[in-house]
């Protein structure tokens, strides 16, 4: 395409030497230093005042790590804009452009950058770092379990690793789709120039970054020997590491997920392109919005629970201690009020991304779009009513077993609809067997197994055998790793060309895929076997009757990790030297493929006008999700374009 007068890209705007103000001096290193300095001040003051009192060390750890989180965020620039607003020095346009990363090259990836694409990329790297840490911890667990009485880890270290592996993976999986893709891709998909609240967007990322060090600090603060569920009263008695754990959760769940969720919902609600009705938005937007809404319901419960936990530990309240008049069951209820919706927060955006993949790589419209939307909303609504199935065997309210069995089993109806949508989209399509499609098939295989094993657990009599047993561990790894994370990996392969500007090396990627696909089955069938034999979860030493099953699982786990490392190698190699990607390598029809790669700041040179949904495959009509890209002047877009442009059949 030749454009007579190329429009000025925003990132080429010349900025004055003072643009950005304080932002010019702030980056991750400054945040780190500010966090450490404030934490040191907090430690000195709290130690002088509080150490030696009844709950001194808990208070000191709480104050110190809270100071770290606040200090890091001061240093990185989270509070700049609100502060300037308060003192009446609101940001100028130049400041905003500087904040969006104009003229900073690669350095903007280390800064508080408001460009949603930078935030998405930062999230992408952060997720991979978190998975690397969590995966390493998983390898340590499996190595410990390769023999019945291994001396590789002490029981205390093992318990802490079990806890931190769980929590870090929960954090990573919550942000693995809603971070990279709902930030980078979603606004472009719906024709928006950025997220609704760009500064909150950057905040949601850097708050997660500041929440991770307290989680890792648990290793030097005595360890959290409770598992990530941190059941009281064991967690109330745990070493001060538990306070660090709680600070991490409050920061991550209470601030970051909430802020990010509001941002996603407001963006999709208010910033869609002209003509993009709610039945024309790509299905990924629906999955992201329902997931975000569910997160808004779930995460405050986690915030509340962990705040009460800290007061129990650091000030001597007794919300959760039976012996002092509290109730451990209260903890369990509040925890699972968060804990079950949370798994659907993880799952929904990934499955929605798979629907995009199924459509693009079968060259067919998404099958039963409205049923898919109904399934997301149905899952989201039912997910808040099933939490007590985690408590079937706790002794709390046996009479409520039946209603919770009902809600739990009902949720398999909308989940079944998701399967119908996926296989209905594949039905008689033309399967383009590129890498993202591989992961769709692996998802179908794994998630069926995860679902079928889930119905045993939903049944109280069978749950009395499987609860707290390795079978449960294998089940939720089949759904969360084999299901949600495989879906997210498919999404990575799908959107990698748009995010990095390069094609993912599919030869290495497909090698990785086969390692992951096969080793995953070996690993978790080993754990199903352990569970059937009666091995409890979270034990560092076991009865030798479980030996062979454990060895099968450990060997599988090593190859699984190898597979992920090969995939990581494919990502790194492709990102550095991969083939330059065309703007639309998949010949897909949604808006993110209509903008140029790399995507310019504010995405669209001309406001797009949408006349159909992005699934017009085989309908013989012009593509309805066109960016009129050749027109340099925004004024040229006629206001009533949706009437005159020939559109496809909107569903």
């Amino acid at each position: 395409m030749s454009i007579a007068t190329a429009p000025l890209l925003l990132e080429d705007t010349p900025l004055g030497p003072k643009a950005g103000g304080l932002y010019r001096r702030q980056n991750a290193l400054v945040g780190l230093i500010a966090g450490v300095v404030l934490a040191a001040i907090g430690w000195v003051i709290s130690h002088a005042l509080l150490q030696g009192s009844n709950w001194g060390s808990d208070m000191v750890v709480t104050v110190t790590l809270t100071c770290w989180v606040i200090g890091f965020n001061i240093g990185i620039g989270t509070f700049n804009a609100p502060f300037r607003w308060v003192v009446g020095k609101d940001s100028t346009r130049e400041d905003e452009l500087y904040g969006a990363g104009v003229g900073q090259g690669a350095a903007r990836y280390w800064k508080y950058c408001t460009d949603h694409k930078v935030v998405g990329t930062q999230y992408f790297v952060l997720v991979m770092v978190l998975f690397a840490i969590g995966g390493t911890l998983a390898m340590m667990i499996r190595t410990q379990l390769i023999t019945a009485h291994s001396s590789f880890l002490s029981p205390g270290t093992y318990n802490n690793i079990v806890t931190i592996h769980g929590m870090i993976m929960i954090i990573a999986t919550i942000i693995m789709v809603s971070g990279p893709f709902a930030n980078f891709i979603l606004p472009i998909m719906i024709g928006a120039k950025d997220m609704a609240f760009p500064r909150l967007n950057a905040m949601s990322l850097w708050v997660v970054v500041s929440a991770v060090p307290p989680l890792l600090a648990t290793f030097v603060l005595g360890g959290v020997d409770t598992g990530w569920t941190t059941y009281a009263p064991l967690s109330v008695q745990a070493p001060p590491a538990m306070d660090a754990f709680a600070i991490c959760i409050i920061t991550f769940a209470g601030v970051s997920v909430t802020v990010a969720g509001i941002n996603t919902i407001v963006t999709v609600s208010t910033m869609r392109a002209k003509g993009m009705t709610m039945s024309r938005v790509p299905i990924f937007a629906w999955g992201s919005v329902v997931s975000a809404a569910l997160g808004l319901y779930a995460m405050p419960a986690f915030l509340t629970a962990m705040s009460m936990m800290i007061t129990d530990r650091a000030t001597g309240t007794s919300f959760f201690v039976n012996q002092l008049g509290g109730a451990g069951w209260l903890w369990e209820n509040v925890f699972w009020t968060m804990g079950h919706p949370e798994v659907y927060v993880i799952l929904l955006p990934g499955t929605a991304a798979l629907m995009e993949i199924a459509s693009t790589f079968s060259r067919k419209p998404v099958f039963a779009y409205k049923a898919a939307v109904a399934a997301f909303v149905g899952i989201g609504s039912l997910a808040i009513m099933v939490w007590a199935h985690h408590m079937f065997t706790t002794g709390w309210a046996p009479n409520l077993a039946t209603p919770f069995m009902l809600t739990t089993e009902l949720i398999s109806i909308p989940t079944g609809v998701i399967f119908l949508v996926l296989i209905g989209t594949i039905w008689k399509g033309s399967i383009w067997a590129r890498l993202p499609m591989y992961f769709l098939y692996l998802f179908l295989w794994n998630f069926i197994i995860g679902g079928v094993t889930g119905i045993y657990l939903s049944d109280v009599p069978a749950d009395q055998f499987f609860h707290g047993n390795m079978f449960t561990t294998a089940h939720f790894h089949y759904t969360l790793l084999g299901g949600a994370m495989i879906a997210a990996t498919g999404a990575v392969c799908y959107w990698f060309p748009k995010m990095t500007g390069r094609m993912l090396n599919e030869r290495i990627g497909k090698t990785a895929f086969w390692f992951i696909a096969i080793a995953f089955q070996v690993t978790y069938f080993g754990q199903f076997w352990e569970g059937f034999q009666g091995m409890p979860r979270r034990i560092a030493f076991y009865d030798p009757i479980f030996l062979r099953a454990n060895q099968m699982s450990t060997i599988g786990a090593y190859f699984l990790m190898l597979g992920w490392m090969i995939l990581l190698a494919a990502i790194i190699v492709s990102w550095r030297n991969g083939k330059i990607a065309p703007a639309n390598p998949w010949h897909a029809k949604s808006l993110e493929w209509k903008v140029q790669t790399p995507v310019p700041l504010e995405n669209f040179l001309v406001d797009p006008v949408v006349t159909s949904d992005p699934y017009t495959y085989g309908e013989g009509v012009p593509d309805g999700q066109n960016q009129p890209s050749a027109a340099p002047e925004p004024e040229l877009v006629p206001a009533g374009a949706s009437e005159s442009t020939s559109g496809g059949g909107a569903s």
Partner: protein
Amino acid sequence: MSFEQQFDAIENEITEEGDAPPFFSRPGGKIFIIWLVFTAIGVVIGVFAPHHLLPGLQSGTGSDVWATIVFFTVLAAPVAAFVYALAFYSLLAWRPKKSGSSDEPPPDGPPQRGNGPLTILWVGISTLLVIVLLVWGMTVWSSQQVAHDGALQVNVTGQQWLWTYEYPGTGVTSRTLELPQDRPVEFNVTALDVIHGFWLDTMGIQTDANPNENTVIRTTPTTLGGFVVRCSQLCGLNHAFMNNKGSVVTPTQFGNWLVSQGATTSAAAKSADVPESSLTPSSTSTTTAAPMNTGASQ
């Protein structure tokens, strides 16, 4: 266009004018055959595998676990097999050769945006299955909740990191769990410090031991033999070692065991529900492990 010809040849789609090919050479028919095979495999695995994988079950509630797994697997097998059959067939029949390495997409598929009756049928079938699952679960669960008169009472107390079993009325407190055969048992489960999980895997019952709370679970051991009680709730440093042995014995052996643990013959006979004359005073001929065995070094 060679691809499209190949595509049509494989697919053998019914054309509006042409004769309909036989059912089994159409995609639906082929998928149906694959589905039957997959379902059969699933049903065979579901019926035969659990028996080999589960530990030797020792009570009716234990058999409920086995029956539930078998029943649910048989019920789920057709659904799972349908998804697998369609996915499998799509890779064989609808994937153009070399499409994996092509930079150009294959031609568009049919613009099929949904199928209302099929969606309704799908939702209907899954609703029906859910109702069956629920009825099964409710029936079995309520049958497990029935209290029996004259059930043997056992007070179970968990603490870091051992279990203590008290037999009220006999003065016996033990760290091995002896249960008489064919006698309903009620476990009153509590804990001293943190939450533990009292789990009799071979009997298919489990409940948490909560401090300051008493939780009742019931079963009737039917099969003689030993078992291991394992803690199922992470309870701190030595959670992995919190297990100990137990066994199901005949009522007479149980009475004798109570006597060997220091119960009077009359109290033991009353608790074991056997005639006093059948018990040997101060007998040590029990078949079970030594008392106060924490089971940590099994």
